[in-house]
């Protein structure tokens, strides 16, 4: 037992546990805020009102068309530039320029755009008959949305949204490549890189970090699959998400 615990790989897994929590923190903060933003953007993009659809589609295009790496740099630089003039007088400087705030903030903006495109695609493929049926029985706009649009949109978009969340988790690695590391707040790749610089054992440290990513990705798939099962429980077919690539993102 002792020999297993002293194996370098196990030692690495123990060392990398706390850094993995930082990646998870970014993910768990970005998903709950990114999801409503994405739904609003998708509804905006799908709206007939040009004042809503043009800004929403421009936003989605801009954030899907540029690298997240640049977005991190840009927003961090903008908050730094605003620091003396705006944040300092307001007294929220400690929050606004902190990577633990800016990181999830940019991730929310980014995942909002990617997920909005997914939800938008789902909105356009909602079975027409269901919406017509909702109108035929005299539902209000809100009732129509709640009973016909929303459940169908979620069900249709869910597999692609799962992929997006996994990709979002993978993009959390970029946070500390673009922002300063404060104290010991290192994420998986930071820590793996630090361990690598000590003894140059590339395969050991990087595969330990890769294992964390793999396991957490599989957990995300598992959880989202459970939700998908629930979303499609009325369909009476056995559906399950597979860990297979999609090419949307």
């Amino acid at each position, binding site marked *: 037992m002792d020999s297993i615990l002293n194996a370098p790989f196990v030692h690495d897994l123990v060392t990398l546990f706390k850094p993995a929590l930082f990646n998870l923190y970014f993910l768990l903060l970005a998903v709950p805020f990114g999801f409503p933003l994405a739904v609003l953007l998708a509804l905006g993009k799908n709206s007939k009102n040009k004042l809503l659809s043009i800004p929403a589609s421009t936003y989605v*295009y*801009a954030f*899907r*068309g*540029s*690298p*997240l*790496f*640049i*977005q991190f*740099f*840009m927003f961090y*630089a*903008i908050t*730094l*530039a605003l620091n003396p003039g705006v944040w300092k007088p307001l007294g929220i400087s400690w929050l606004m320029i902190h990577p633990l705030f800016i990181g999830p903030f940019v991730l929310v903006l980014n995942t909002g755009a990617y997920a909005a495109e997914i939800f938008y695609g789902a909105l356009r493929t909602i079975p027409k008959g269901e919406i017509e049926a909702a109108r035929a029985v005299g539902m209000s706009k809100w009732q129509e949305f709640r009973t016909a649009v929303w459940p169908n949109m979620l069900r249709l978009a869910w597999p692609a949204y799962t992929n997006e969340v*996994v990709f979002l988790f*993978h*993009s959390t*690695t*970029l946070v500390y*490549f673009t922002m300063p590391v404060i104290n010991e707040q290192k994420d998986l*790749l930071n820590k793996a*890189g630090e361990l*690598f610089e000590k*003894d*140059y054992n*590339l*395969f050991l440290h*990087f595969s330990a*970090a*890769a294992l964390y*990513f*793999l396991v957490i*990705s*599989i957990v995300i798939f598992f959880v989202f699959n459970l939700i998908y099962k629930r979303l499609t429980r009325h369909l009476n077919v056995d559906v399950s998400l597979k*860990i*297979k*690539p999609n*090419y*949307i*993102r």
Partner: protein
Amino acid sequence: MLEMLPQWLIDWLGPDGIASLAYITNGKHLSWYASVRYTLLAACFGAILAVVFGLLGAAAKLSKFAPLRWIGDIYTTMVRGVPDVLFLLFFPLAFEQGVEYLMAKLYCKPEEIAAATGWPLCQSAQWYLSTTEYMVLACFSLGIVYGAFAANVIYGALKAVPKGQLEAAHAFGFPSREVFWRFQVRQMWVYALPGLSNVWLLLLKATSLLSLLQITDIVAWADRLGAPNYSPLAGLVHADWRWKYYLVLFIFYILLTWFSEKFFAYLQARAGRGMARAN
């Protein structure tokens, strides 16, 4: 150089305009514009290698020999669970270490290896990489990572080729190898193009990560140029302007994406000539 501008343009710009024009065309800025070549070269060669690796991966996935099929499946699923950044950092480092290991075998004395504590094992086994070498490694790692995405796209496209076409080729007496390369691969492009277009857009965005591989690309230059600039003679030249430079890069990448989409739409229309379409 700026004196060569026509007089009406100088008048129109005024002294302030000329000063800004002189500023954004100074030596450092010209180096920044020139460093776009790294981004474009890495994208182009990375894409070519990605298609090559994609074809190999798809061929492995379709192979009748099971272990080859497993290799293909592992290759195409590995990018699902692990971030591309990790691979982009891993492959060049692994290759560098592999070469240094071979160099150590060749050039180091045994007592040096025995006394070595770090890496490389001795001084003569150190491989100093130039930007060109880093670029080659970066192209290969982009090719390997996005080749896995391309392999999935190509695999799907190969399966989308109508069976009748292949059966007809077989009936004409073509050997299996030729049926694969001359009919299946020849015809799959039109099915693969939409997916490959997405992989290209991903790869294009991943080229912003070149600065992580010690290449002074547009991102690294933007960081240098935008940083607060003090000079002992002139005082504060400019404050922290990084956000302006990153905003330029942000728009630059959006434009690249826009051009790529237009180009792929043209390719798609061209490749789809003579194909029956639903709409």
